[in-house]
């Protein structure tokens, strides 16, 4: 089975660390954690992920802005981005079909199962 490359961008190191540990233990995933939003685009170009988990609220760059940068980048265009956000509730994301502004959202706290489901849904085997 192909190892899927997952980039996790969140300014909270504890989140990226635990997500990386969980995902790499659970399946054939290679996870790269990035805690600095301003370096995230460069990391994405270098790492070439199959999917990106992206925090919405970060101190340096807003998640939405970063998603637009990644989406318009020649090397990273087309990489599915899943927003992780603390400021919407599960009910709100469900009410909007888990899509807000054309992006898939996962409300925090997300479980490992919801993360792996997303990966399987948005990446090709």
């Amino acid at each position, binding site marked *: 089975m192909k190892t899927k490359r997952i980039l996790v961008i969140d300014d909270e190191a*504890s989140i990226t660390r635990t997500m990386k540990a*969980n995902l790499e233990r659970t399946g054939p995933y290679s996870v790269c954690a990035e805690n600095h939003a301003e370096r995230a685009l460069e990391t994405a170009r270098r790492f070439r992920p199959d999917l990106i988990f992206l925090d919405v609220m970060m101190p340096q760059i807003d998640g939405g802005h970063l998603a637009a940068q990644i989406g318009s980048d020649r090397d990273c265009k087309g990489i599915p981005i899943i927003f992780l956000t603390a*400021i919407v509730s599960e009910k709100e994301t469900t009410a909007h079909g888990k899509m807000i502004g054309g992006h898939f959202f996962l409300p925090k*706290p997300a479980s*490992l*199962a919801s993360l792996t489901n997303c990966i399987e849904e948005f990446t090709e085997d």
Partner: protein
Amino acid sequence: MQAAMNPVAAPLSFPHETEYKLSSFSRSVAIATAIILVIVFAWFDYVTGDYSMAVFYLIPVGLATWYAGRAVGWFIGVLSATAWLAGDLALSAPSGHPLMPYWNAAMPALTYGIVVELLWAVRRFQAELEKRVELRTAALAEANEELEAARMHFIEVDKFESIGRLAAGVAHEVKNPLMTITMATDFLSEIVPLTEVEGTAMIESLREAVERANRVVCEMLEFARPSALSLNLDSFQLVAERALGLMKHEMTRKRIRVLRDWCEPEQLLLLDRNKMQQVLVNILLNAIHAAPEGGTLTIRTRVSASEFIAEIDDTGSGISPEHQSKLFEPFFTTKPIGQGTGLGLSVARQIIQLHAGTLTLGNRPEGGARVTIQIPTASGSKS
């Protein structure tokens, strides 16, 4: 027209005699006293001979006018003049002009008439002043009530705004650590073997704690930012049954019996199914919490004119008077710590208001509380 609408600004006007509400008792007593006084003074007048008692008659005239009205005042005045005339005729020697006693009686009669009119004017003026004071007091009380309502509204709005700001901040600051805890819990659950009973129990406790904290934050978010409704023609009954289904476990645990009284035919309403279910779950949770072991919960629907009405009754102890005004205040709860955020009813009311309806809570005469939801029927609602 405007002046008529504003009692305080209305010009001073004398009310008609019939507008005065003199009690029949004080009126009768005044008339009787006045007549007795006239008789007494007439008798004195007669026995004292030439000593005039004309001024004394002003007492019964004044008394009658003040307490029994203008007409009675005039009557007593004429009676007094007549009594005075009778005494004069009985005592006077037949000297002078034959009409002299009549002329002499006409003078006090005229004086009495003037006194009656003057007194009556004062009386009317006093009554008008009393009326004005009464109206001003009522207007002041009304203004005070409006001021209090505005103050409460301001506090509520201020509270909502504060909650909005707080909710976003709290959500970010709490949900991020919860994410870490969730990830760590998932990680531990993979490491700790199922045979490790205590470890597994701790992991479960961690999950429950995260869920509880997350629920509070999510309710705060929903309260601070009620999202727009997704309205569709839907059956309230179906939504209610789904909510009851979700509460089945809690109801079974407390042996609560559910009585259903659905209106016929089944009513289709413009509803946001998920949000209406959220409202009903909140209400049912409160009702279950309030109901005693083995209690009854009744859900009843009916259609009245252009309104759909749903009532949910419980057999608990009802709402205490000191709690009545606080029920919809954010964070007000009567549940033990950890069992309620105090946002459920506030959120429920917001959702019902978004449906252009009302949500009210009250006590039933037979005991227990009643929640009433009123929403426009699909045909009665403005599209």
